[in-house]
């Protein structure tokens, strides 16, 4: 048997798990001098494959495990391993596709609480090793002339993800990762209610916090590059409720304090500048 054919067969049998179809491969194995059956030895690879991949999902999704319960979570992991074999040499990225898999799977897509939790946990994992940038302090604003402030636009840390989640997801995640009773969390009540979250990295650790609806809209618009002064006027923002320049300034201050902002520039319709117009 050519090496390529052997590897195709071996991989097929590892992906499928032990069974009758192993026979052609089992015939290729030498007998164990210790009395182990060929099936037992091949199963080291077959079961090892599933254990290893399942472990990656367990590590990255404590909240999902907590709200689904062990049995349902393991069924989800089995489905994912069966239907989405890994294609990235770096094992870190095996779990990245889980939320998308759940949204596309007839079995899992209607569990909005679970999908929501998977999205939050993926954002936490992605934030952990995203590109390094240096956050700016709020004092950076002092470098800009007051007349420029309405035109100020902001660059955000690449780790920042903004999420619209099923209501209760954040509290469930918080409970699942708590040091007092890790792994215990109730699933959020199913319904149409939503909540918003920001996930980012600060001081080498992933962080998250719930956003009020007006702050979520403001942050979305600010991240899209809109200037501070324009955001108050935006339809999307006005639909989310009352907003005042003072409230927006308060949000901006918290984004600086949270370490989300990495750049400030003067924005205009035809050009942007990364430098203050006056110091």
């Amino acid at each position, binding site marked *: 048997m050519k090496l390529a054919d052997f590897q195709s067969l071996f991989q097929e049998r590892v992906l499928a798990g032990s069974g009758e179809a192993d026979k052609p491969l089992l015939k*290729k194995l030498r007998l*164990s001098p210790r009395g182990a059956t060929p099936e037992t030895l091949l199963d080291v690879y077959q079961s090892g494959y599933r254990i290893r991949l399942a472990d990656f999902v367990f590590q990255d999704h404590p909240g999902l495990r907590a709200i689904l319960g062990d049995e349902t979570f393991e069924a989800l992991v089995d489905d994912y391993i069966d239907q989405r074999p890994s294609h990235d040499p770096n094992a870190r990225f095996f779990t990245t596709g889980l939320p998308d898999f759940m949204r596309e799977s007839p079995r899992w897509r209607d569990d909005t609480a679970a999908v929501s939790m998977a999205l939050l946990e993926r954002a936490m994992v992605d934030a952990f090793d995203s590109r390094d940038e240096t956050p700016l302090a709020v004092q950076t604003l002092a470098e800009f002339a007051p007349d420029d402030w309405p035109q100020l636009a902001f660059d955000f840390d690449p780790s920042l993800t903004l999420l619209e989640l099923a209501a209760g997801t954040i509290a469930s995640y918080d409970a699942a990762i708590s040091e007092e009773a890790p792994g215990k969390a109730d699933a959020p009540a199913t319904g149409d209610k939503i909540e918003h979250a920001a996930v980012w990295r600060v001081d080498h650790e992933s962080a998250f916090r719930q956003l009020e609806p007006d702050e979520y809209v403001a942050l979305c618009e600010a991240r899209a590059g809109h200037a501070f002064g324009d955001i108050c006027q935006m339809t999307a923002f006005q639909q989310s409720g009352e907003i005042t320049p003072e409230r927006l300034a308060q949000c901006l201050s918290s984004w600086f304090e949270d370490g989300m902002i990495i750049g400030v520039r003067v924005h205009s319709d035809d050009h942007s500048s990364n430098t203050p117009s006056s110091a």
Partner: protein
Amino acid sequence: MEKPAPLGYGLGLRPVYYEEILSSRPPIDWFEIISENYMLAGGKPLAMLDRIRADYPIVMHGVSMSLASTDPLNFDYLRQLKALAERVEPAWISDHVAWTGVHGVTLHDLLPIPYTRESLAHIVERIQRVQDFLKRRLVVENASTYVSFVDSEMSEHEFVREMAERADCLLLLDVNNVFVSSFNHGFDPVAFIDGVPAERVVQFHMAGHTDHETHRVDTHDQPVCDEVWALYEHARRRCGDVSAMIERDDNYPPLSELLAELQHMRDIDARIANEQALSAA
């Protein structure tokens, strides 16, 4: 044979020990990283590595090069590896006599091959291409295996020797892997160590494994066992002064226990050196 200078006694760098390493600066001569764990855009792993490499030599050890795979070499992976090497400046880069998948799939395991002339020619050609791309000699490790194949045309150590000489690569001798595979397949582990070209060995791996009575599995979650220590002594006598280290990947003990294993290694080596000095006198 031009080889990198020996680094002494090292440890596999794992996140669970970051803080203790940085705060206590333990008596470890060098660290080996799992390359893939640092092939990332940024974040804590790279930040910790930057701080630790400021004080310790680093060696890069990969698990995904898939040298024996019949898939095309993954140059996206190799470019990332090369970029990491430019940042880390490792003493060397290693990977395994193994494959991890075909048809674009990766099984995240070090899979076995039949030791045939076809496999040999295939892996030799790929090691040479990797060495050309990385512009450095690759260090290649013997893997633990649980099955062996009726199609094999040579022993594992004959395969490894021929591979190293034809590809002109260096070797990482995993002493625990020799023991595990010898137990599982019934070959003489001493003959394996005597059969590989000692002049190409630049590193020893030492680790623990799990005993399932009819077979043993390379789990890196136990202390090094007595049989593997005995084999280490033989390897040390045969290969001389090469860099040696402990790998631990699960069931993590206090760092002090791993330091004690490194001290055991030092004690064995000191005894061998004394014996050799006495016999030379």
